[in-house]
Structures are given as C-alpha cells and as structure tokens.
C-alpha cells in the first residue's frame, strides 16, 4: 500500500456538496459534486467522499488530510431553526439583546414603520442574576451562585430550553463570574449546552458580545451533533487522519475545538475562497490580489495585500453582530440570478433574484423576468447546448425575447445593447464596491490582480477588469470549486485576544508581556491538543492601536524588542496609508491579539505540461457568435476546451474557454496566456480609457 497522497476537502453549500482532492504526487485536482442531503448532512459528505475517491481510483486510506467546511450553522441562523436558547446576564440588564444598539438598518432609514425582527431569544427566556464588575474588572457585587442555578432551573426545567448563553458586563476585563456561572450550569444541567461570552471574545461592547454568545448557543447543539456524527461515520469508514473544520477567519481547527466554539464555523464557506486566493497570491508572488467570487445571488470580494488577507474582528449575520475574527469579505447583492427591470425609464439590476425557482428565463422553468444569466445567453457568452454538460434544456431565444419585451423596448435600445447594458450595470455596481474596499486600504484597485472564481466569476471578471483598468485577471483551476480548493491549503489557526485600553508607552508594553504570556499558554494548550509538531508552530503578536480618543484601531505587528516609539511609528505609517494623514497624538492600545498557527504541509503548485513553442495558440474546438465588449459589436469568438490548454498557450481575444461548470469570456482588446501551473491570465492589449485616469486631486 502506498503512503497517503491525497489532500481532500469537502465544502457543503446551499445545493451541492463539493468534494475536491489534490494529489500531492502528480498535482492532479479532481472535483466531485453531489446534491446536499439536508435531512442528514453527514450523509452528503460521505457520498461526496465516496464519489470522489471512486472517480480517482483511490480509497479512504489514501487520504492524507481532510478539511471540511459547512454552512450548517449559518443556515440554522438564517432559517431561524437553531436551538431554544436562554440567556443569563446581570440583574437589571436582561434586555440588552433586544435593545441592541437601537439602530435601524441604513437601507430602512426613511421607513417610519420599520420594526426590527424579533430577538433570537424572547424576553421570557432572558434572566438576570445579581453580580457585577466595573470597567476595570473589579467586583462591585459578588456573583449570586444560587441565583445562577435557579435561573438555569427556570430556563431548563420550566421552559424546556436546550442551550444557555451567559454574558456579564465587563467580562472581557475579568471572566471569572462568567466562568463560575458556566461551571455551575454545566454541573447542574449536564444535558444542556452552555456558551460563555468570554470564551468566544474578550472584546468590549456588551450588546455585540451578547449577540455573539447567543448565536453560539443557538447553533451549538446542532453543530455538536453534526460534528460528532460525522467523526463517527468517517472513523467507521476507515479514515485515520483527523477531521479538520474550517474557521470563518481562515485556517482550520480540529473537530474537538469546533465543538467547543461552533460559532467559529459559521462563515467558513466564503473563507475557503479567500484562503485559496491568499495561497495563490503567495505562491505566484502577486503583491495585491482581489478575490472575485460570483455565485447565483451575490458577488463576494476580499483584498489580499502582501500575502495577507484583509481581516476584521466583527461581522454580521442577518443584522446580528459577531465579535469574531473573520475575513473582510464585501458582498454585493447581485449575481447570475439578479433580475433586470425598468424603473421609470432607468434600467435596474437586482436586488430581486429569480433564485433556483423559477430561475432565469432561459431555463424555461416559468421565469419571465430577464436575469444577468439571460443576458449572458443572449450575448452568446454561454452555450445553451453545452450548459452544465447539456443536462438542462436551455433557450437563448427565450432569454433574448424576454430582454426585448421587458427591457429593450422601454429603453429604446435593441435587444443586444439592452443585454449588454444589464451586464454593464452589474459591473458598475461591482466596480463601486471594489473601489470601496480597496480605498479603505489606501490602495488603488488598478494595482490589483483579480482572481475570478465561483460559477460565474470567470464570465464576468474580464468584463470587470476592462471597466476598472485592472491589468491582470486570473482564472484558477476548477474555478467553480475554488472555495473547496482553498480549504485544502489551510493551516490550523487560532486567535486569542484581550482588551487592554491602555496608553501606548514603554511601561505598559512591559506590562503587556504577562498578558501575552497568558495568551500564549492558552495557545500552546490548543496546539498541544491538535498535536501540532514543535517546529510547525508559529505565533504572531499584534496590537490594535489608535490615537487617544479615536475609536477605530489598526493592527500593528508587535515583535519582541519593539519599543513604544517603534509601535507608534508603525501605526502612524499605517494610518497615513489608510486614512491619508497621521497625527501628532499619543497612541492607545485597544487590545492585544495572538495568532497561533499550526503550519500544515502544503503541496507546491505543480507545473502542467508546456507547449513546445510558447506563445502559440491552441486548437479551437469551434466558434460562437458572441458580443465583443471591446468593439460593441458581434464577432466570431473562438471556443476552446480548457482541458486542451497547455502552459505557454496564448489566445488573443475575443475567445471563450469552456470547462464543465464554468466559462471564461474575454474580448478583442484582451489576450489570454496559460501560465506554468495552468492558470488563465487575461491582460489588456489595448489601453481602455480607465487606465489613463490620474488618481490625484487638488485637495
């Protein structure tokens, strides 16, 4: 028997399970898709693995590592079908979850009838107990332990709840009250899940922390059952390598850690794509990369600079905040299914989506409103006959007719221009969003390479690049399953943070050493538990710094020996880049963070076969009439099969590259070159107007 050689990842999405393997010997990437099994999610995962292994002629013993991303927790929150949760908090503060920040979403700012969604935990299930700390973490009132147990009894025995969330004021400064309450509850009610806010986050802001721990409690029973059952089934099937679960902030964690902090899994789906983008940016030496992940209803994008993805420490799900480290992924609510419609003479795209049912008009499932996908059919970008391997009866004529009737007539345009306009509007919205996320980093989007993935990413990215003046668009291998590919490339990562709120001076920095040592002890314990080898361990210390009086902080790496002056100088530089100015103000340390990494072996990118005469064109498998955005006219596009492309092949646009689940479309002013590893690199041959725009101003 050979040594294990396959890295395997399984990503459960809304409708499909993507299973992917990377053969560490020959670089072969294989993908297998099966439908999800919502009634028993673990079965879908096993089905995906079996199908994948069959398709590559391997068995479970060949698996060297196994990573898994699941949207189970996210779906439970979005569909409001998580556990029944009770909250125990300070007496007099049991309404924090409901009062929240009292704000209305900005999209509803003029809606005087707005009513926020009901809180995740109804008022009757939120109880207060005596006990109070002040802002320094000093005890004002001792914890009433009997009251904690009595509150637990009411929630569990009278109300029949299965999960309890505990959050006390100022627990970020001293978690002892929360920890004691957790012990008491676990002891008294062993069958009930208990979540403690300070276990999840040590950051201040009580509503956000309460929301975080409540969400954790909400999905804890579901996730624990699922992970437990999956572990059992995989072990029964003969898997010997540990199960790793993807985290929202990138990296993976062991199943045991995932069960302790299930909330960490909740945004792991899009995280896979960012991890993959980061991996490619590092391997290819690309300084600035933007992920561009296009699905049916949304476009997700994240900035990766110098091999570091942009991270934030707060996210939102359905309006509910979570204080967790997460990639700063910006979502635009428009994708392939977005509907184009006329609004008093203006053409709008989205936010309504045709969804899976009825879907685009072209699918002929009853859809009558033209979508972005219909525009792609109408313009010849997608081949109705070959769509999804020809499994689906698709009509480009129906798409064109709908565009003609619903859009073109009112616009006074022909149907072709109308179809192109639908895509242009989607692209314009995306350009705006990408500007917003790059400008926050003090960078110009034109300095980025765009990495296009997701089913429709490669179709839209070259169009977007023309519009933004982006020099290079890259299409990775298996773009439709790229999130799963990213999971293959994950390290084990754990983040620990503590609020400091102290002035930035050398005395304070000395004092922080103890806190870092404490965080490191926690990190070591976790890495030990993960059986990470000593030489594969890496620790990164970061300080969140701001000017005194400012709220938003910036992360500054803190190396051993750094003085307060060093930290302040690094912060000033970063502030000038991000905000256009630095100030002559003292600094303040908001929090300290420690990232512990268990570095996992990652296979180098494997070179694909090269064409002998670099720069030659491959043989086209046919041609298709499609709309060339470079000339605003129809043209014969040559069509290529991606499987036939070799390193060094060069294809002048306009042309189309097809692969089973994805289509790359580029235009007359663009050229595609296949790189050594099989990525498609699309660049501009002629300058589009945007590339000459000055970025300066008089101010």
């Amino acid at each position: 028997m050979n040594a294990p050689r396959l890295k395997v990842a399984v990503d459960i999405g809304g409708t499909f399970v993507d299973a992917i393997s990377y053969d560490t010997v020959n670089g072969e990437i294989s993908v297998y898709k099966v439908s999800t099994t919502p009634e028993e999610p673990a079965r879908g995962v096993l089905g995906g693995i079996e199908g994948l292994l069959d398709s590559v002629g391997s068995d479970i013993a060949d698996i060297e590592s196994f990573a898994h991303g699941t949207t189970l927790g996210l779906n439970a929150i979005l569909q409001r079908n998580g556990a029944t949760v009770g909250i125990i908090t300070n007496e007099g503060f049991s309404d924090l979850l409901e009062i929240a920040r009292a704000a209305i979403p900005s999209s509803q700012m003029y809606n005087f009838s707005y009513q926020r969604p009901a809180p995740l935990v109804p008022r009757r299930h939120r109880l207060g107990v005596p006990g109070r700390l002040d802002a320094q973490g000093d005890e004002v009132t001792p914890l009433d332990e009997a009251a904690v147990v009595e509150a637990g009894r009411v929630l569990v025995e009278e109300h029949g709840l299965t999960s309890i969330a505990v959050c006390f004021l100022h627990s970020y400064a001293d978690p002892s009250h929360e920890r004691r309450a957790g012990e008491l509850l676990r002891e008294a009610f062993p069958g009930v899940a208990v979540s403690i806010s300070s276990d999840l986050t040590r950051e201040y802001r009580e509503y956000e922390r309460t929301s975080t721990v409540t969400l954790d409690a909400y999905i804890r029973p579901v996730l624990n059952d699922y992970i437990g059952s999956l572990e059992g089934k995989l072990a029964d099937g003969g898997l010997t390598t540990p199960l790793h679960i993807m985290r929202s902030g990138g990296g993976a964690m062991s199943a045991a850690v995932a069960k302790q902090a299930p909330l960490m899994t909740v945004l792991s789906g899009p995280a896979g794509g960012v991890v993959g983008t980061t991996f490619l940016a590092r391997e290819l030496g690309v300084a600035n990369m933007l992920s561009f992940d296009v699905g049916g209803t949304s476009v997700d994008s994240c900035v990766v600079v110098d091999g570091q993805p942009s991270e934030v420490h707060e996210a939102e799900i359905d309006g509910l905040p979570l204080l967790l480290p997460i990639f700063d992924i910006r979502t635009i609510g428009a994708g392939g299914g977005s509907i184009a419609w006329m609004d008093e003479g203006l053409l709008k795209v989205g936010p309504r989506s045709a969804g899976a049912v009825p879907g685009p008009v072209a699918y002929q499932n009853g859809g009558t409103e033209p979508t972005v996908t219909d525009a792609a059919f109408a313009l010849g970008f997608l081949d109705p006959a070959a769509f999804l391997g020809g499994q689906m009866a698709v009509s480009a004529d129906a798409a064109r007719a709908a565009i003609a009737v619903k859009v073109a007539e009112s616009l006074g345009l022909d149907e072709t221009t109308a179809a192109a306009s639908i895509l242009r509007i989607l692209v314009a919205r995306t350009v705006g969003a990408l500007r917003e996320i790059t400008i926050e980093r003090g960078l110009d989007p034109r300095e980025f390479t765009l990495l296009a993935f997701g089913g429709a990413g490669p179709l839209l990215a070259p169009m977007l690049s023309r519009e933004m003046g982006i020099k290079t668009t890259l299409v990775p291998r298996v773009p439709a399953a790229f999130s799963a590919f990213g999971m293959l490339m994950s390290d084990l990562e754990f983040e620990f943070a503590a609020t400091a709120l102290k002035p930035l001076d050398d005395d304070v920095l000395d004092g922080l050493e103890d806190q870092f040592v404490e965080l490191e002890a926690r990190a070591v314990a976790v890495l030990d538990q993960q059986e990470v080898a000593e030489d594969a361990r890496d620790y990164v210390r970061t300080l969140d710094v701001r000017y005194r009086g400012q709220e938003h902080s910036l992360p500054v790496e803190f190396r051993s020996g750094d003085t307060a002056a060093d930290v302040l100088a690094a912060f000033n530089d970063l502030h000038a880049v991000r905000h256009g100015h630095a100030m002559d103000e003292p600094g303040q340390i908001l929090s300290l963070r420690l990232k512990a990494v268990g570095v996992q072996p990652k296979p180098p990118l494997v070179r694909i076969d090269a064409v002998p005469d670099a720069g030659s064109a491959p043989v086209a498998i046919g041609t298709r009439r499609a709309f060339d955005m470079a000339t605003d006219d129809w043209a014969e596009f040559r069509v290529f099969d991606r499987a036939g492309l070799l390193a060094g092949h060069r294809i002048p646009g306009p042309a189309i590259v097809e692969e089973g689940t994805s289509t790359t479309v580029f235009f007359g002013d663009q050229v595609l070159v296949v790189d050594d590893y099989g990525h498609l690199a699309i660049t501009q041959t002629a300058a589009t107007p945007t590339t000459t725009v000055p970025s300066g101003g008089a101010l």
Partner: protein
Amino acid sequence: MSTSPNPTATAPTATAPAPTATAPERLDGATVEVIRNYVVSAAEQMRRTLVRSAFNPVIYDVLDFGISIFNADQELMAEASGITHFLGANDRAIVEGTRYIGLENMGPGDVFILNYPYWSGAHAYDAMLFAPVFVDGRDTPAAFLAVRAHWMDLGAKSPGYVLDSTDMHQEGLIFPGTRIVKGGEIVRDITELIRFNSRLPELTLGDFHAQLAALRVGERSLHQIWQKFGIENVEQAIRQVIEHGEAVARKAVAALPDGSWTATDYIDDDNITDDIIEITIRVTIEGDSITADYTGSSPAVPGPVNLPIGSTEGIVKASFKSLTTADEPSNAGHFRPLTIIAEEGSIFNAVYPSATFTQWSAIVAVELMHKALAQVIDAIPASGGGDEPGFMALGHDSRTDADYVVSNNEGIGWGATKDHDGGNAQQHASQTTVRNTPIEILEHKAALLHERLELIQDSAGAGRYRGGVGVLREVRYTEPGEVLSMKKKTKTKPWALAGGHEPEPSEMVIWPGTDRAKRVGMYRASMAAGERFVNRTAGGGGHGDPLDRDPRAVVEDVIDGYVSAESARDTYGVDIHPDGTWTETTDRTDRTTRSHSQE
C-alpha cells in the same frame, strides 16, 4: 437697520455655471444607471473614509453626520446614509455658502467651513466642510462636496452642550464659509483659531482631518468618473437622474389624495421660560405637488430651540421622503414636488441672532407632517415616542485624570401601524441610523456605573396594535460630574391613531428615591458621587382600540412582561388567571355584543 451678518447683506454673485458648449444628447436609461452607480459609490467611499478616520464617537459610533455631492448648479447628485435631516440641510447650506464666498473666489484644492446656523441649517457644532471640485477648462466648480459632522466643542458658553443660550454668540465660534484649506494646504491660522477656542481641540481637529480625508476621496472619485465617461456625459446623466427622481416622487404624490390637512403638536418650552410651544402645519396636496406650511406656529422664542430655515427644510424633506421615495438614494429631483413655507422670524425660520443650539424642536417636528396626513393615509404609523430622549454626562475621571464628555441617544418605542405593533427601543425617526452608546464604553470613558437598562412594562400606547416599548436607564455617578437631560417632549404625550392610546411621555428623574427627586425634560444638573438619575423613554402611540387586540397577543405580551396583567385586564379586557388560562372581560364581551346587536 440691522448690522448683523445677514445673508442678504452680502452681495450675491452669479451661481450659474458656464454653459456647456455642446449639450450632449439624451443618454439611454442604462448608461444613466451605470453613471449613477459610480456617483453613489463616490458618496459611499466618502462615508467609509469619514467613519474610519473620525476621532469623535458621535461620528464613528453614533454615526452623526451627513455627506452630499452636488453638481455645478448645487443640485444634490448623491448622498451617503447618515442623519436624515442633516442631509436635507446640506442642500441649502451649499447654496448659501457658495453665495457668500462667490464662485469666482474659489479655487482648486480649497475647502470651506460653514456653521453660521441661519445658512448652515444646523446648530454651530454641526459644522459643514465643503469643497468645490474643478476640472480643466472651466473657471467655476464642476461639482461640490459636503461633509457635515457633529464637532465636540467649538467654544460655546457651556461645555458639552448648550441648553440655555439666548443668542447665537453664546453658541460657539462661527464660520460663515471660511477657507480652511487653500489650494490643498491647510490654513494654519484657522486651525489654530479652532484649537485655541475649543475645549477639546484634539478631538475637534481630529474630526476636521477625518472630514478632509473624506473630501479628498470624493474629489478623486469624481475626477475618475469624469475621466471615464466625459464630464458632459456625467452632467447629462445626472440631469436625467434628477428628472427620474422628480418623476418618481411626483408619481408617489399623485397617488396621495388631494386636499389640505392640519396638525398641531407641542414642544415643552424654550428652556428659558416654562411655556409650552405650539407648532402647527398645514399640508396641502394638489395633484403631484405638496406644500408644507408652518404658518401659525410659534414665533421664534428666546431660548435655543429655534430652527433656521435649512433645519426646517431638512426635517420636512426627511418626512416627505419617507412618504414617497423611501427606498431610493436621494437626489434633488425627489424634492421638487415639495414646497415649504415658514414665516421669517417664526420658530421654523429663525433669523439672526435667534438662539438655535438645542434643536430638539426639529426632532419633535419630524412627525408633524405625518400627523397631518395620518388623517387620510392609513399606512402612516402613530407617533414614535415624541422625540429623541438621550443624555450627556460630563466630569473628571480620577482613574485617567482626564475630563470626559459622553453622550447617549436612547431608543424609544415606535408608533403602531394598522398592520403591526411598533418596534421596541428603536432610534427616533429623525435619526434612524444613529446608535446608542455601549454601557462598557460609557463606563470606561466616564466615572459612571449603570444600575439598570431595561425595557419598560406598560410604556407602549395600547391599541389593536400597540406601540413599541421604551427604555429605562438608571445610572450612578461614582465621582462628581454633571448630567444633561436631552428631551423636549415631556409635558405632552406622543399621539396615537384610530382609537389607540397615547403613551406616557419621556422623562428623566434626577436623584430618584430621595426627597430631592426631580422630574425634568431638557436640564443640566450637578451630580455628587453616589447620586443617580433614571432616564425613561416614551413608548410609541397605539393604533386602534385595545379591546380589538387579538387576546392571544395580549397573553404573549404579559408572558414577556411588555404588558402587565393589570393592563391586560383593565385596558385590553383580557383577564389572565393564575393557572395561565385567560378569559375576556366584560369590557370586551359587552362591546362585542353591542357591536353585533347594532349590525
């Protein structure tokens, strides 16, 4: 003859832009939408820059600002979400500021500061920075950018907030449209003037830099858009966007019934006397036009609750937008169907030197148009809490040996509608995107300790649908300090609809449970260590007869404690028994029998 810096005292200069040599043709509706998206994104990029760079929690956490982009004619092209009535006020401020300076006196890279209340449409601390944006080949600006944000201190008569000024000169350092950046260089004379006049110079100048950073981003974005599409095309697209805004708004107005309706409401007083102030509106709809006429409202008062016309326009625009085009990012066209009438010298059109610092009057007045139109438009909700009943705290914190000023905007209960209950603890309609301040931040920055923060039982106006419930906050001072209670509707109740009940108004009680206990509205008090206040915010007005409320909803409310068992029985006619079962009281059953027998 007045010697005041009156707007008309300065000779107005021509504001018309140089006519474009070649007027472009009408653009198709798709191209217009593409360009519109770029311009809206420019405003959003400015907003993100401001929030990320601001120093003052009222900007970055409370989100108390307004960002607008105007074309060469000073018509609104796009705005970023912020305080709704700030946004409307920017529209007039840009016109007044430009007129004062004169287009011919503006140059590339200039930034001006405007906080003269009667031009700026806000009190002196809501300073608007604005910048003309130039393109090659034109000697007048092709666009204007405006960023308004609340500054922490500009040297008014009292620290924190001014509650008792009687003319403008007690309200802080005034800039009528003063060049603070010239040709890209900050004018140090002006920033030093601010530094020496502000009690909180670091915060104030930090926020100036944040506003400047936002303006720079906006300028760069506009240049990119002009380069990409050609400025003539962008201008044409914006003309069409504004036409579109007008068409949509007119269509919405035309769908409303024609007629004329009035409403009256009350502001507690002007903080100088105890007299209740009456405000009144007549709303007239004729076809696709609407007029909001405040004639008959109180004359301007001595205390600082007067509104410059720009403030009045800001609130009317917010109300009007909520009734017509609530879902669309604003442009000038949306407001073309709207005419606003307010007599000069009245509380809604205050002139120099009227005191204008404490514009809670505007907050109360935001709902006045709704109150008038609720008589004919059944989709309008009842009153949401009356006003924004927050507080500020000031003092010295010995832990950090620093002075502090903190503030909190508290949620109120929103009004019920004909279809659902009002929301619990939501920010007032005048400032929907503002947030409260976390307890953990307040207790870090200030020597305060919270005793309670809870929703208030029975605070909602009862009804077939009840209002939302209000919030109670009890705070103890751990060191000596001051409290400023901020609210202007504590003497009269928020209004209800269709037989719904009016909730109790907001209030603050200082020194509760002692013989000094004092119920106050807008008020400043010194607090000794250990002393407390309780801030109670109003619920929303009810909609419909409470006896028509679904009894199961009443029972659920009692289980959750939003409604007491006594109110359930006495007000809603639902008697809940100790075993959890319930029966309808005779109030309900007799009434049902009565109405049946009448049929």
